[in-house]
């Protein structure tokens, strides 16, 4: 009987273990809707959800859109190129204008860390952080946790390795916070140029060498390498990155039997992950995408479905 008492979902940092479990449990009960013939329930009928994306995104944006529509909410999309941002309007002004149209939730993707936190202070609509700068991407972490729990039956006690550019990855940050909160044992691996100062304070191990890091792990999470960062001397070449830091079948063999491979997408095949690994039986990459819809339905439901503070069981009954 946990309550979800938040107006916004800003990050994994703000969630308790109970709240994370509540979201995952809710997602589980909502996942079935997507498998039905008529993939729609009236739960959020009359609610308005704005997808406000300052950065290009296909997967996350579509996922939120599908999630909202399956719950019968009305969705509206704004992107940096169609919004007044290009006319020089500030984020706060744009948000206040949106607020005047009384949306229930604003889903924000923004290149500045902390932008959703600022918005949450300015508007009464619920804010869902769909990725802010290099800070957090909580719904990605939640769908990753969901997928791990679904595939492995638990999260607590699992050995998880996250590989790649930890410094500049909001997916990594949210997953590190989420996984450690849920009791997983987290190891980070990647070039030292991409390992942020003080990361050990998150309660993780750092093992630079990927083969060594993967050894004995249950979950291998590969991050997308942002090719444009090459100009910032973080690594010498894509070729070298692929050769020394990419996930190959060979090093994957060191993982535990039944280990799964995850990737938030989009894939750079042949860079951080070989096609063979991405498409192999261990890969749960497409499950992640499917679960993304269920988790986002759960988040929307918990934020604006029924009265604030409803618990799941009441929620289920009202379906």
């Amino acid at each position, binding site marked *: 009987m946990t309550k979800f008492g938040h107006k916004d979902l800003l990050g994994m940092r703000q969630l308790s273990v109970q709240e994370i479990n509540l979201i995952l449990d809710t997602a589980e009960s909502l996942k079935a809707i997507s498998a039905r013939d008529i993939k729609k329930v009236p739960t959020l009928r009359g609610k308005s959800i704005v997808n406000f994306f300052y950065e290009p995104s296909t997967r996350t944006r579509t996922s939120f859109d599908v999630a909202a529509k399956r719950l019968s909410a009305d969705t509206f999309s704004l992107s940096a190129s169609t919004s007044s941002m290009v006319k020089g309007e500030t*984020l706060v002004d744009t948000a206040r204008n949106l607020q005047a149209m009384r949306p229930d939730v604003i889903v924000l993707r923004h290149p500045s*860390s*902390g932008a959703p936190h*600022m918005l949450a202070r300015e508007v009464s609509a619920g804010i869902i952080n769909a990725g802010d700068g*290099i800070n*957090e991407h909580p719904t990605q972490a939640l769908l990753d946790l969901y997928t791990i729990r679904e595939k492995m039956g638990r999260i607590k006690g699992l050995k998880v390795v996250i590989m790649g550019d930890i410094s500049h990855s909001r997916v990594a940050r949210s997953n590190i916070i989420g996984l450690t909160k849920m009791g997983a044992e987290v190891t980070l691996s990647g070039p030292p140029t991409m390992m942020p*100062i003080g990361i050990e*304070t998150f309660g993780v191990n750092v093992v630079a060498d990927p083969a060594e890091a993967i050894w004995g792990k249950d979950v291998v999470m590969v991050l997308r390498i942002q090719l444009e960062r090459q100009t910032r001397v973080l690594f010498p070449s894509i070729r070298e990155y692929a050769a020394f830091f990419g996930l190959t079948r060979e090093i994957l063999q060191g993982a535990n039997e039944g280990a799964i491979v995850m990737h938030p997408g989009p894939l750079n095949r042949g860079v951080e992950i070989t096609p063979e690994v991405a498409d192999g039986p261990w890969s749960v990459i497409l499950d992640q995408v499917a679960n993304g819809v269920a988790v986002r339905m759960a988040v929307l439901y918990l934020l604006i479905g029924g009265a604030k503070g409803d618990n799941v069981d009441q929620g289920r009954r009202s379906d």
Partner: protein
Amino acid sequence: MITWIRGGDLIDPVRRKKEALDVIIEGAKVLRIVPHGGFQEEGPHIRQIDASGKLVVPGLIDMHVHLREPGHEYKETIATGAKAAAAGGYTAVACMPNTDPPNDCRAVTEFILEQAERAGLVRVYPIAAISKGQAGEGLTDFGDLKAAGAVGLSDDGFPVVNSELMRRALEYAAFYGLRVISHCEDRALSAGGVMHEGVVSTQIGLAGIPDASEDIMVYREISLARLTGKPVHIAHVSTASSVQLVRRAKEDGIPVTAETAPHYFTLDHRRVMKYDTLAKVYPPLRTPEDVAAIKSGLREGVIDVIATDHAPHSPLEKAVEFDKAAFGMIGLQTALPLTLELVREGVLELTDAINKLSWAGASILGVPGGRLVAGGIADLTIIDPDYEYVFEPDRILSKSKNSPFIGQKLKGIAELTMVGGRVVWEKE
């Protein structure tokens, strides 16, 4: 007309004394300083100011402010900055040249002095640019700038990247007795950074500015001062390593002086946790260990000066995403109470604190004031060290309100500020 400031405790930051003395002022000068009861005249030509229970100190001198005029008058003008200075207990401020146009020629220096004259409050000392347009290429006309009234040289806001140019600046400036003030930042290392690089930047996903970006340039300036034998002043020291570098340099007899600002001994990087742009400043708020090192540096005299780096910004620059916000915070009205906090904590003796707020900066820049002596200028501040208040926005006289201390309880305030025998500020 004679002004008699009676009953107060007079601070002499040079002799490091606090004594029960009255100050008698005639015109713009101090006439006499006498023990309580040593002056008895009365009459209509005598104005008495009761300072009993208060501190009477030489007018505070801030060697590092940004007054934004010319060019950014929507943030601050020389008049509004001077008003905030007077209310903060300052009788003189030295303003940095990063205006628009920058103060890199006689015309701008003279304009600043004219505007200060018009404001008629505190003394305003222009610091001129080291390089033309603060572009880091050719030197400005040091001689002409000095003749126009500039008291120091700095490319503050923009580090001088070219080490040879910096070397020549030190050598050439010494000929005119102008101190070169260095903003120490290796911009290749700090590029893209918006806060201190450390545990907090990692936690909240903001790009970091490593402490090394400051330390490297501090060492370069020390090295150039050693090479040339010419003095250099390090602006806004914020890191433990910089304190250590300056400490060693001083032990080695290298002519280096240094300043820090109250936010570097009061706040640390955790203040940024909620992406509060009011706490975004360059150099960034560092770690608690750095804060402790800054305090030791102040106590041991490694850091000579407490300056404000008063940097007004409007909501246009601050009510935006953290990484897009401007660096800087105002400080003229909070420096005194925050420095007195160090005295209460036992970090500094009161006389040392006043020294760092007045005499030290005056002697580095070679400007008058910084101590009260018979025959000297009558620039002074009466401080009520026990006055407690919440720092509300309506107290702020600066045109901009970008202070991270808003809403905080402060203790100690300037009750009266006098410049050249004239009262320019009196607390309600």
